[in-house]
């Protein structure tokens, strides 16, 4: 085991998979000259400009050409940088990558093994067009796997699974998680999709949190432990496939659920997980599912306003307490 950052873990996964499989290549804006400690740092020098391609600045081109390369047998990785920029390429990601295998009846093996890397998250003064965590859009679209890693171990193992997966995968790295350190094995390993991780066990309330929200939820759980409230925190790790069973098992025990996701709440991750849990656990529920997330506003710039809009540990605490004492 060694201790590395999440960014480094993703970087290692990319490097090792590129070494392992000559069909893996990566493209994105500016890749020739990224910082050494970035997600793609050092890859250009190691693999050269054919396999680490500095792409023209047009997201539809970057994403769309991944579709073409995948059809031609490659395993492209698109580094799209901020998730906000990827909006320019939603036709390519949603309608091409997500739907083509199905629309073309699988065609005896049509595969679209593409990884779309995107960086998400607010809390850094990026304002409305540089702060989004638009995971909900992709969950609304069929055919796309969705990865939201929170630890270096998971990030590396999930990225390897993503690259080896024969389907399009959205891989979301949070701005504030890149520097998180954690232990990672020396040897090759995979983290499978569709298996949630219970980050903290508890009996009173279940909290499902995604990406950076997991750390906020753990803080909230820690604080509430001092008030004798026992909170279980579940990190789904992938949202498609979603390990609903782990969540349902927990909620059956606690009867209470708070879903925390940084994205806008309406038609978001919380709505969906909440709905599915209510369907499955209707009679177990002691109070309605609550969610903590962006109250359907663009992310504002000023730290004061950003704090008002984005989730925090104290907002999560408040929601947990509300599930315990519903009005």
């Amino acid at each position, binding site marked *: 085991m060694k201790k590395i950052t999440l960014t480094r873990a993703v970087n290692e996964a990319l490097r090792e998979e590129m070494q392992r499989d000559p069909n893996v290549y990566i493209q994105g804006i500016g890749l020739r000259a990224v910082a050494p400690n970035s997600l793609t740092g050092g890859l250009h020098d190691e693999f050269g400009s054919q396999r680490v391609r500095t792409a023209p600045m047009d997201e539809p*081109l970057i994403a769309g050409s991944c579709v073409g390369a995948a059809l031609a047998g490659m395993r492209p990785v698109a580094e799209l940088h901020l998730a906000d920029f990827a909006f320019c390429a939603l036709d390519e990601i949603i309608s091409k990558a997500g739907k083509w295998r199905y629309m073309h009846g699988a065609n005896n093996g049509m595969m679209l093994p593409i990884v779309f890397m995107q960086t998400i998250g607010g809390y850094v003064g990026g304002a409305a067009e540089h702060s989004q965590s638009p995971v909900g859009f992709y969950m609304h679209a069929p055919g796309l796997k969705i990865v939201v890693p929170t630890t270096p171990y998971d990030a590396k193992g999930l990225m390897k699974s993503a690259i080896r997966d024969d389907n399009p995968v959205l891989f979301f790295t949070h701005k504030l998680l890149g520097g998180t350190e954690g232990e990672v094995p020396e040897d090759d390993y995979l983290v499978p999709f569709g298996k949630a991780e219970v980050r903290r066990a508890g009996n009173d309330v279940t909290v499902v949190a995604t990406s950076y929200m997991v750390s906020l939820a753990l803080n909230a759980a820690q604080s509430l432990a001092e008030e004798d409230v026992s909170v279980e925190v579940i990190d789904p790790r992938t949202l498609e496939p979603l390990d609903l069973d782990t969540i349902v098992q927990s909620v059956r025990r606690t009867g209470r659920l708070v879903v925390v996701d940084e994205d806008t709440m309406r038609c978001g991750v919380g709505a969906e997980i909440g709905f599915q849990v209510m369907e499955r656990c209707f009679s177990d529920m002691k109070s309605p599912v609550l969610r903590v997330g962006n109250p359907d506003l663009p992310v504002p710039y000023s730290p004061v306003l950003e704090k008002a809009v984005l989730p925090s540990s104290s907002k999560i605490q408040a929601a947990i307490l509300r599930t315990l004492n519903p009005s």
Partner: protein
Amino acid sequence: MKPSTEQMLGLYKMMVRSRAFEEMVAEQVQKGHVPCSWMSGIGQEGTMAALCQLRSDDHMTYTHRGAYSFISRGSEPSRLLAELFGKSTGYCKGKGGRHIADLEHGVMGKSGAIGSHAPIAVGMATAIQIRGGDQVVISLFGDGTSNRGTTHSALNTSALWKLPIVWICENNGYAGAIPSADFTTFKAASDMAAAYGIPGISIDGNDPLTVYAVAGEAITRARKGAGPTLIELKTYRVGAFAIGAKDLRDPEEIMAWKQRDPIERLRRQLLEMDLLSEQLIASIDQEARIEMDSAVRFAEESPFPNPEDAYQDLYA
């Protein structure tokens, strides 16, 4: 780049088969056997003179119009029609309809959005370049589709990376009922090439032997790793935008273009060269008709998919 006798005859047969397919589909659409409409490619078969030069390991992207691109790669009319009928024997098991893929013959999938194919062609050519092969990609787009920003960024990228792509703009003078002058300022779509510093040439798309020669050179150039070329084929769709749609164009204009039919032109030339006889012509026609009749039977007799099949094929 001159085709051999065999190649010319092969091309001619292919064009006749494509035309027969289109006519047959039109009939089936009109009879109500096709649950969607179809954008006929009649009149634009000249493009086949480029596509027929692809090796089976080459790639192609195509447009919403016509079946000639599929036919030129070897897709079977029976399974194409079965797809349009929504039958389980169709190339996409009835899931795609007009949006056909036939991976076995290098027909890689059709976008519902125009302009999406150009970046896809860039990706295919990138794959070739990374692997170091000598395959090429032919990517077709309409004059209307030249409006899409994706077309431009794909052209730029292909020029920048010297990708093995032959871009073919099938300029049929219209997008829907709207004449080109209403949506683009390009006098010749090949003017775009100059902006990217790649060779661009405008030719008569209804003259198959010219198309063959010019495309052949561009393909050779791409195969050698010398980069992309943009060819504009000036052509015309003889039918309406889609089968059943109202045609607002000047009937005289349509008539004039009918006189310039690419199949008739090639037929005349081959007759002059003594490569065709009236008898051979008739037998090629008849063979095509028989093939299409049996395609109709195949499609008609094929079963619909099972409702449960809807839950398959999303993920690999």
